[in-house]
């Protein structure tokens, strides 16, 4: 044992203890900040972090979590917090907190400095789940297809040529591509049909069949040989017939596919038509389109925000749910961590009960509880739940409940939100030109419900406004005097607003529905004023579209008809050849049967005669013997 080594170790231990007392807190603070920032995608900052090794307690005086989508705003910040870590799990490198109290929570506060992360780290944030991305994309596409009302239509100043110039139809390109695609398919089919057995094979079979000389069959061995040859010919013919029949069936199913081309072209033309109408602000006035015009965009924006949060939750829960890690190629000197934990073990991170109180960005004082904030729910077999409630001095109140359950292979997130008694004065409810006035009075209620299980998504948003009044003092710039009058007539009829919007996605099926009590009011006025004009413009646009794609459509249809006809004919001819060959084989078999039967009878008769002769000879010899004895 080295004495110097021992002394060295004692010095090192003393240094470690000293560093623990003076430096550890700052070191841990930086490390926590760095890790949390990386996972948030924007800065997370702690103030006056304190960690006590002796009683395993943690505390901080302040915490700021930057909104990754707006790095000059905090998602939330907190005041002083303190909590104790459980010792036993900590020995297993697990962080378990029984009770965590978060006071002075404030949401959406402005930051004094930019909370963006520098360069590389930002890319390592928790991304979106693919399903959520698809829902988001569907909502976006749906909203983009919503028409904006062309006010020129109401003012009688619609320029059809201008609209047509900007139309950029997509069907001609698609039909052209379809034509090429069909050409390639037709060539392939022609090649396949050309490779089918045909006249050459049928003639070869015919020769083989004629080679069987029935008249030469005299012995059972020769009969057997004839039958064997016939069987081989029959098998070959069956094979040929089967491949031709199979080809015919495939061609039938291809024909059904090709028949769908016409419908496809029709749907492309329809899409173009609707797109041109939407682009030109010439919607077909129905309750759906009017509702979409009034509330489509605001609803979509809200939905996008909810989906962004859900996407992160889902992506995270899917990541931690994976047990067997895929092989990674980490940078040198880093390695890959493999998780080994038993079901009943502590999860890596678990706050059993989080009590929070604070204020939302809208100034509503909130308080509530989050239960089981955990890195892996399967280990504790409980979902994460959240209950929040709050109110504001003006009577506005909030209730929020959430359940995030990722214990099964099919994760589920459920959210319910209710905002009541919101004063509507000074707010706008839509950017629709006829109703784009600030509200002068009214009280509103917003409800939201989301149920997202596996890939099935259902969200319902409701808004109701009571005793609503519009501040119509300022005339919107977009409206001329006549339209302003028209819009005043509309808003005078409105003292209540009821809106229900629902988004559903199941697999590839997506649907966004919207209904409001304003639909009929707006629709009535619009129909009354612009219906005939819109109809005329719509008809004209449809005619132009038909003129543009008519020739291409006819060409595709005639190509399909001719191509299909010639293929069918070739296959049917081949089939006919082998069916007639089949008949010939049957005839040959019957002839052989007959010959064999005749030969059998001949041989039988011959045998009987021989036998008779031998019997007679025996009789004669017997008689002669008896005569000689007696």
């Amino acid at each position, binding site marked *: *044992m*080295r*004495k*110097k*080594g*021992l002394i*060295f*170790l004692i010095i090192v231990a003393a240094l470690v203890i000293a560093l623990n007392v003076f430096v550890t807190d700052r070191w841990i603070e930086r490390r926590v900040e760095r890790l949390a920032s990386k996972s948030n995608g924007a800065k997370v900052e702690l103030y006056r972090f304190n960690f006590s090794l002796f009683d395993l307690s943690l505390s901080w005086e302040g915490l700021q979590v930057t909104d990754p989508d707006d790095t000059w705003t905090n998602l939330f910040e907190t005041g002083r917090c303190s909590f104790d870590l459980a010792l*036993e799990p900590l*020995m*297993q*490198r697990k962080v378990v907190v029984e009770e965590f109290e978060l006071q002075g929570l404030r949401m959406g506060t402005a930051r004094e400095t930019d909370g963006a992360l520098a360069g590389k780290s930002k890319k390592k944030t928790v991304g979106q789940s693919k399903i959520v991305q698809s829902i988001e994309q569907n909502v976006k596409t749906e909203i983009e297809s919503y028409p904006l009302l062309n006010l020129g239509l109401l003012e009688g100043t619609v320029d059809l040529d201008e609209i047509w110039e900007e139309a950029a139809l997509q069907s001609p390109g698609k039909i052209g591509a379809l034509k090429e695609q069909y050409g390639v398919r037709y060539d392939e089919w022609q090649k396949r049909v050309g490779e089918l057995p045909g006249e050459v094979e049928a003639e070869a079979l015919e020769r083989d069949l004629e080679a069987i000389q029935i008249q030469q069959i005299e012995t059972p061995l020769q009969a057997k040989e004839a039958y064997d040859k016939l069987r081989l010919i029959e098998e070959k013919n069956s094979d040929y017939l089967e491949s031709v029949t199979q080809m015919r069936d495939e061609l039938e199913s291809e024909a059904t596919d090709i028949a769908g081309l016409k419908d496809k072209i029709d749907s492309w033309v329809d899409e173009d038509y609707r797109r041109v109408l939407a682009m030109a602000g010439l919607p077909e006035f129905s309750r759906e389109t009017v509702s979409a015009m009034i509330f489509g965009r605001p609803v979509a924006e809200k939905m996008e925000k909810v989906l962004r949060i859900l996407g992160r939750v889902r992506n995270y829960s899917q990541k931690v749910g994976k047990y*067997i*890690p895929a*092989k990674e*190629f*980490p940078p*040198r*000197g*880093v*390695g*890959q*961590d*493999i*998780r*080994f*934990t*038993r079901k009943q*073990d502590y999860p890596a991170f678990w706050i059993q009960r989080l009590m929070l109180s604070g204020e939302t960005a809208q100034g509503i004082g909130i308080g509530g509880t989050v239960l089981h904030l955990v890195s892996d729910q399967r280990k504790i077999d409980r979902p994460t739940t959240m209950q929040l409630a709050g109110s504001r001095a003006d009577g506005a109140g909030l209730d929020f409940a959430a359940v995030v359950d990722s214990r099964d292979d099919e994760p589920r997130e459920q959210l319910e939100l209710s905002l009541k008694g919101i004063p509507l004065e000074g707010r706008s409810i839509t950017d629709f030109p006829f109703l784009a006035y600030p509200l002068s009075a009214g009280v509103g209620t917003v409800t939201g419900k989301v149920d997202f299980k596996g890939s099935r998504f259902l969200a319902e948003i409701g808004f109701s406004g009571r005793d609503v009044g519009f501040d119509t003092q300022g005339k919107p710039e977009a409206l001329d005097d006549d339209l302003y009058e028209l819009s005043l007539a509309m808003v005078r009829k409105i003292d209540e607003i009821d809106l229900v919007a629902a988004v559903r996605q199941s697999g590839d099926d997506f649907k966004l529905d919207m209904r409001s009590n304003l639909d009929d009011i707006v629709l009535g006025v619009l129909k009354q004023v612009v219906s005939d004009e819109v109809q005329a413009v719509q008809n004209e646009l449809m005619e132009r579209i038909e003129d543009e794609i008519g020739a291409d459509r006819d060409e595709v249809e005639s190509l399909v008809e001719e191509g299909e006809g010639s293929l069918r004919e070739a296959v049917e001819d081949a089939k006919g050849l082998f069916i007639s060959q089949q008949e010939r084989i049957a005839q040959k078999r019957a002839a052989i049967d007959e010959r064999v039967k005749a030969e059998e009878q001949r041989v039988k008769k011959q045998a009987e005669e021989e036998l008779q002769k031998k019997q007679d000879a025996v009789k004669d010899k017997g008689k002669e013997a008896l005569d000689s004895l007696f």
Partner: protein
Amino acid sequence: MIFLKLLAKLLKVLTSGEHARQIAGGFMLGMMIGLLTMKTLFAVPIVLVLILINVNLAAAVVGIFLFKLIAFLLDPLLNALGYWILVDITGLKGFWTEIASMPIVPFTRFNNTLVMGGLIVALVLAIPLFWGVKRLVIGYREKVQEKVKNWKIIKILKGTALFRFLSGVEKLGGR
């Protein structure tokens, strides 16, 4: 330059008056530290042993330096070996799960592919390396040492600051 430093260290170790087994022991422990990343708890007992028992520290420094370089070069292979042991050998999953639930053990980061790969290679090499280095030192002292002393480069190296530093390290060993 790196090559010269390594050569100087190596010669200093070989010409020191220590027992061959002390040099081999130091080199072996250095190899273990070199192959294992310092972020694992496995490294702590090895460093303690290195400090507390009479092994040659200069040999350990050479071992650390050499095997850090080897570990860097063989990183993908060590990673693949660690992954194979931790994931592909499914029969061991229960064992890993069991020890992952024990106190302190998770701090060894045994579940890291690089740590596990390095640990296995270090354990496999330990005995053969100890024995091999011991034989090598004895052989060197008996047959080569006198010839090497007369090399020009050796005379130059003996005058360098590094050589003097390594002499200091040797004295820290308590001999």
